């Protein structure tokens, strides 16, 4: 092989490598598509839970009572939401509203948190409800 042909081949190879590198750099991060989708879904779940709670009068009353520190409301919320969330893949949750605070026992490791918040107004006071749902993957 003469020297000239070697240089040409090397040149062509370098061009090829440069082009491939360029393309790999601009490729969209496709592997994260499913992860992003899961994260979106889980955040939607947290939003759903608070939204349905403030939308329905009897559920909203329970939430107001929880925010006032009512122990019965806290127990009822804990039992109902734990049962409900077990069907969604969440391992535990944390809810804070007014003087009420509730953190359930985790059935797994907290690896992902989806959060949501809503303003609560019972006609007398305005408070904020903050919810965090935890997932183990």
């Amino acid at each position, binding site marked *: 092989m003469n020297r000239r042909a070697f240089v*040409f*081949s090397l*040149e*062509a*190879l370098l*061009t*090829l490598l*440069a*082009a*491939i590198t*360029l*393309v790999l750099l601009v*490729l*969209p991060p*496709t592997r994260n*598509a*499913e992860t992003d*989708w899961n994260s979106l*879904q889980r955040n*939607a*779940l947290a939003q*759903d*839970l608070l939204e*349905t*709670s403030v*939308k*329905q009068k*009897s*559920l909203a009353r329970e939430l107001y009572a929880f925010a006032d520190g009512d122990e019965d409301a806290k127990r009822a919320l804990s039992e*109902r939401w734990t*049962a*409900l*969330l077990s*069907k*969604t*893949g969440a391992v535990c949750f944390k809810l804070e509203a007014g003087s009420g605070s509730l953190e359930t026992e985790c059935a797994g490791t907290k690896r992902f948190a989806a959060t949501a918040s809503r303003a609560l107004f019972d006609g007398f006071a305005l408070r904020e409800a903050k919810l965090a749902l935890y997932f183990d993957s």
Partner: protein
Amino acid sequence: MFSLDLLLATLLAVTAAALLLYVFTANAHSFTERARDAQAQADAFIESENALKTCEADGGAALCEGGVVLVNEIKKLPDEAYAETKKENRKENENRVCVTRIALFGGKQTAVQYCAERGDLK
């Protein structure tokens, strides 16, 4: 000679790159599209009167508590069957996209799962 080599290599690289880009973006696009379609269908279904009617037709809204929505129908499943369904859904292939939402049925907060198959995504 030198220019021809360079031209051929560049053409080859560009073709390969375009092919790669097409394959990657087509996959990502189809997943995102299907996910978005399933989300839209689930939202529309859950928020529609039909969901509640289907629930009621199934023996009363209370039956929908903890129910699973499977492609336009709500089924009350015992816990073990629900677990099986969840297990199946974990093996989601590219033809199936599942969306879990919490909605009000008969005044109760209910976890519903809407699964859309490729053929159902219109």
